[in-house]
Structures are given as structure tokens and as C-alpha cells.
């Protein structure tokens, strides 16, 4: 039982790390630009497709990843230039509609370019295999690599946000963007930077999961919704909140699916327990979100002060 718990906990952390990579960029876009972006999930999908394509072209996943990242950044910047910069001043409803339209465009566009069939990416040679945990227990090395890469990114982001001039502007922007602009900072350029960087992080997450999930149209949609849950729990605009909430959501979701039925078996008969468990487990994170909101309507680590 403990072994199962350890394995599922690691899976939960790995899932949480991926959610964090997507959520980190999105929470800054929400927080700093006060803009709702539904199309962030498709950026994750595009990142996965870039990784798959460039891996097939170069024959090596790490090379593919090295090209996919700047490609995702460029893709984000192009979208920002064509569409998003015209939406910053609009109300939320316009942003919802335009980014919803963008999801339709990109999901279909991906189907046209790469076909509707799922693509698979082989796990790179040097990251394959498993590492021993305790006793006979093993864990895939590639998933450990995802966790490590995510943690490194988290540390890098923490340094960037808390110890650089850009980070200072980001934090100031999340609290009061008009004031930052009034102090002579080119807020448009800051927005563009945040957007491109967020697109690259989402693309990075998509590229990292490409070898362990199938790359297919619409793969970003589910992730987008979970990312929203993460951002709502963590507090809009807070990278630290996104990290804590992402790990929390990853753990609750993964452990809930495995242990929900097991725990319920203690209070009801086995078949009813597994049925109820399977039905309730996908709802757990939403219940968690509702509970957090009930006690803290602006999330665990709200970026904005009492004024907002």
C-alpha cells in the first residue's frame, strides 16, 4: 500500500509540475494584463506538436526540444502581435470570444497540418529506463526528468520574479499596471515579453509530455481547465501560488483517483465503493477549488492587495 502511495504521489507531483509550467505563464497574463486567455491550452498543444515534428526531423528529442522552445516563443509573439495586443483594452467578454475563436482555429489548424491521428514521440535514449526507489520499486527515469526540469524552471522563475529588474516590474504590474505605466515603463513591451515567455513555458510543458502522452488535436483543452483551477486556487498573478496550487491539484487528482475507491471501501460495500469512487474522484479538485474559494475568494496567495 505504501509503495502504491509513493508511486502515485510521484505521479501526482509530476502532473502538478506540468500544470505549473502551463499555469505560470497564464497567471502572469491574467494578473498583469487583467486579460482572460482561453487559448493558452492550445499553446501547450502547439508545443507538443513542435517537439514531435522537430524530433522527427532531427532524430533526437533533445535537439527537437531545443528547436521547439524558440519556435513556441516565436509562435506566441506572432499571436501577440496579430491578435492579443488588440484585446488588452477590451472587456473580458471580447477576450473570451476572440480566444475561444483562436482555440477553434488552432485545433482545426493542427488537424489540417498534422492530421487528426495522434502522433507519438519516442522517449530519448539517455532518459529512458527506470530508477530504483525502495526495494523492488522502480520509477521511470523520464518522469523524474520532467519533475527535475519543472523544479529547475520553478527556481529560475523565482529568481527572475524576485531578484531581477524585470521581475520587479512584473510584480509591480500584477499589483497596479496603470501605475507602472505612468512611471515610464513601456508596459506594452512588458506585456509582449510576458506573453511570449508564457507561450514558451506552455510549449515547454507540451514538449515534455509529448513522449509520455499521445500528441493529438484538442489535447490542450483539458489542461486549460485544470490550469484555471490551479490559478483560481493559487491566486491570479502569483507564480508562487500557481506552484503550490499546481502541486496540490496534481496530488489531489492523482491520489483521489487511486485511493478514493479504497477509502470508500471502509464505509460501503466494494462494488458501490468503486463505482462511487470513480464518479467522485474527477470532481475532487473542483470541490477543493470551491472550498478554497469559500474561505479565500481571491485564492491562497493573491497578488493584488486589499484594493483589488
Amino acid at each position, binding site marked *: 500500500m505504501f509503495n502504491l502511495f509513493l508511486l502515485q504521489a510521484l505521479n501526482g507531483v509530476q502532473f502538478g509540475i506540468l500544470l505549473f509550467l502551463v499555469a505560470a505563464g497564464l497567471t502572469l497574463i*491574467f494578473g498583469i494584463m*487583467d*486579460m*482572460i486567455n*482561453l487559448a493558452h491550452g492550445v499553446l501547450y498543444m502547439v508545443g507538443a506538436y513542435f517537439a514531435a515534428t522537430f524530433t522527427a526531423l532531427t532524430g533526437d528529442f533533445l535537439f527537437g526540444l531545443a528547436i521547439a522552445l524558440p519556435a513556441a516563443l516565436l509562435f506566441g509573439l506572432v499571436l501577440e502581435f496579430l*491578435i492579443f495586443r*488588440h*484585446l488588452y*483594452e*477590451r*472587456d*473580458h*467578454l*471580447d477576450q*473570451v*470570444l*476572440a480566444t*475561444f*475563436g*483562436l*482555440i*477553434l*482555429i*488552432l*485545433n*482545426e*489548424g493542427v*488537424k*489540417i497540418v498534422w492530421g487528426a491521428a495522434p502522433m507519438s514521440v519516442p522517449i530519448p535514449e539517455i532518459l529512458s529506463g527506470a530508477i530504483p526507489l525502495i526495494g523492488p520499486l522502480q520509477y521511470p527515469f523520464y518522469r523524474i526528468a520532467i519533475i527535475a526540469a519543472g523544479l529547475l524552471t520553478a527556481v529560475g522563475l523565482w529568481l527572475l520574479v524576485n531578484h531581477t529588474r524585470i521581475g520587479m516590474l512584473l510584480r509591480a504590474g500584477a499589483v497596479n499596471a496603470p501605475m507602472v505605466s505612468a512611471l515610464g515603463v513601456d508596459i506594452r513591451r512588458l506585456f509582449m515579453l510576458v506573453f511570449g515567455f508564457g507561450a514558451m513555458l506552455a510549449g515547454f510543458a507540451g514538449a515534455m509530455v509529448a513522449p509520455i502522452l499521445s500528441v493529438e488535436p484538442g489535447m490542450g*483543452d483539458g489542461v486549460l*481547465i485544470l490550469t*484555471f*483551477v490551479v*490559478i*483560481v486556487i493559487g491566486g*491570479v498573478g502569483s507564480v508562487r501560488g500557481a506552484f503550490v496550487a499546481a502541486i496540490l491539484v496534481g496530488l489531489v487528482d492523482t491520489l483521489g483517483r487511486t485511493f478514493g475507491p479504497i477509502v470508500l471501501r471502509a464505509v460501503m460495500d466494494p462494488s458501490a465503493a468503486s*463505482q462511487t469512487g*470513480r*464518479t467522485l*474522484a*474527477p*470532481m475532487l479538485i*473542483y470541490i477543493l*477549488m*470551491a472550498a478554497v*474559494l*469559500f474561505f479565500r*475568494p*481571491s485564492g491562497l496567495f493573491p497578488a493584488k492587495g486589499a484594493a483589488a
Partner: protein
Amino acid sequence: MSAGSDVAVSGAVPDVAPRRGGMLAGRGSALAAALIFSALAVLPPIALAIGDPFLVVMATRIVVFAIAALSLDLVLGYGAMVSFGHAAFVGLGAYAVAILASHGIDDVLVQALAAILLCSLFALVTGAISLRTKGVYFIMITLAFGQMAYFFMVSLSAYGGDDGLTLSARSTLFGLPVLAGDISLFYASLAVLVLAFLGLRALTLSRFGRVLRGTRENPIRMQAIGFQPFAFQLTAYVIAGALAGLAGVLLANQAEFVSPAYMSWQRSGELIVMVVLGGMGTLVGPIGGAIAFLLLEDWLAHFSEHWKLGLGVLLVLLVLFTRGGIAGGVERLFGRARP
């Protein structure tokens, strides 16, 4: 924030700048609605005359989605709450029919009552939590609750799970199969649409509606003069949820099939598109928007399997280059005619 908004509000700007179709408001609105309803009413005989019974099926879908869009407009247009989980109510209503029918209860009145109760309860609980927040939070939370309902139905394997549930027959009324024919189902749906339109018209013109619109324009000022916006917004959210559930009852009967796909977030997005396309904050707008959207969908699907691409491009262009949907376009074309 709402730099290009055509409504100047001093003080606190609401998160969603309200838009009103000037041309389509007031008496013009009632006239336009009467025209649409009469056109729909004479459609079945015409369809029979030209030998195209599929028109009636299509028109029933349009009417059902018009009811759903109408209910969303109460929340979105009159309440300025951008709810992104509205399809969940439609789906819950549809499942109320399918689940009761699978237990042998197929009276439409019982099913509709169950759908209304279920959706009201779901709206009351999720609305009470969602309304504690505003802005982007509200959008994301309603979306998440919609997904919660979706995943609940996906994992409810006793009632079909992901595959959905086929109805063995349409609902009955006091044991009589009155909805069995496509034409009678169409007229029943149309009757619900007309009643919903008249009911919402009375509601939005009442004191309740005026408070709701006041809250939309400036919640802080409404609070200052002694109203509790929360109670009014929650009531509107519950009414809209119940009406969407009723649309779900009709949808289940129309398709004779229910599946979690009815409640997917793309469906919620499409409902928003219908409302905005037609012009929100007008009751005739969402009806026109539903007609336009479903016809457009049907038309684009004829060209290519990638019709969603065209829809997406259209949406992005619509937002970037126009404001306020069809009603907004009409308003700009013919100048301002504010009631």
C-alpha cells in the same frame, strides 16, 4: 479598461461593459420577436409543402438553442456575469429526461419539474460560490463547475458514461405520446420559447430587472442606495439555470439521445457566441443569434469538415473589427436610436 466602450460610466467601471442594441430594444424588440415567432410558426407547413421534413428537425434544434441562449442572456446581458458553464444546465436537463425515462418515468411534466429542480439546485450552490468572486475569477470558476458536471456524467457509467444514453421513446404527456411527431415537438418547443420570451420580458421590465441592470451598470452605486447585488444576481443565475434545464429537456427529446458532450465547455462557448452574436442585453438578440449560429454552422459544415476553422476566424474578426454583435452592427449602420 473599457476604452472603446460606448457606455460612459463614471466611477467604478463594471467588469463587463454593458452593450445594448439600441435598434432592437423596447418596442422594436417585441416587433422583431413577433416576426421571428410567426416565421417559425408557419415553417412546418412550408417544409411539408416543399417536401423537406429535415427543415422541421433543424428548426427544432434552433428553437431549443434559442431558449438556452435566451436564458444565458439573463445572466450575461442583464446581469453582466460572464458565465462559461451554461451548457452544464442544458446537459443536466437532458439527463433528467434520460435518467427518469430509464426508470420508466416518461411523463414530460415530471421530467421537466425534475430538470428545473435539479438545475435550480445546481445553480444555487455553484452560483453562491462563484458570485463571491468577479472578473476573470468568475469566468474561470463557472467554467470549472461546468467541467465538474461534465466529468461527473462522463464517469457515471450506470447511465452510459462517456457513450451517452439513447432514449427508447420521446416523453409522454399523461401517458399520451404527444411529442412523438417531429412537428408536434417543434410546436411544443416553440411554445416554450414564446413563453420564456414573454416571461423574461416581464421579468426584465420589472423592479427585479431594473435592479439587475443597475447592478450591471454600477454595482457599487447600487450597494450605496441599499440593494444587495448578490441576492439579485444569484436569483437571476438560478432562473437562467432552470430555463436552460428546460431547454435540455427539449433537446433530449429532439435528439432522443443524451451524452456528456451536451455539457462540454465548447458548448458553453457556443452559447456565449450566440448571445453576443445576436446582441446581449436584448431578448430578441439571443434568439436571432441562435438562428444565425446554427444556420452558419450548418452552412459551413457543407463546405468542409474543418468548418470550425471558419467559425474561429469569423469570431476573431468579429471581435477585432466590430463591437456588440449583429445588434451593434445594426446600431452603427443606422445610427443611434436609444429608447
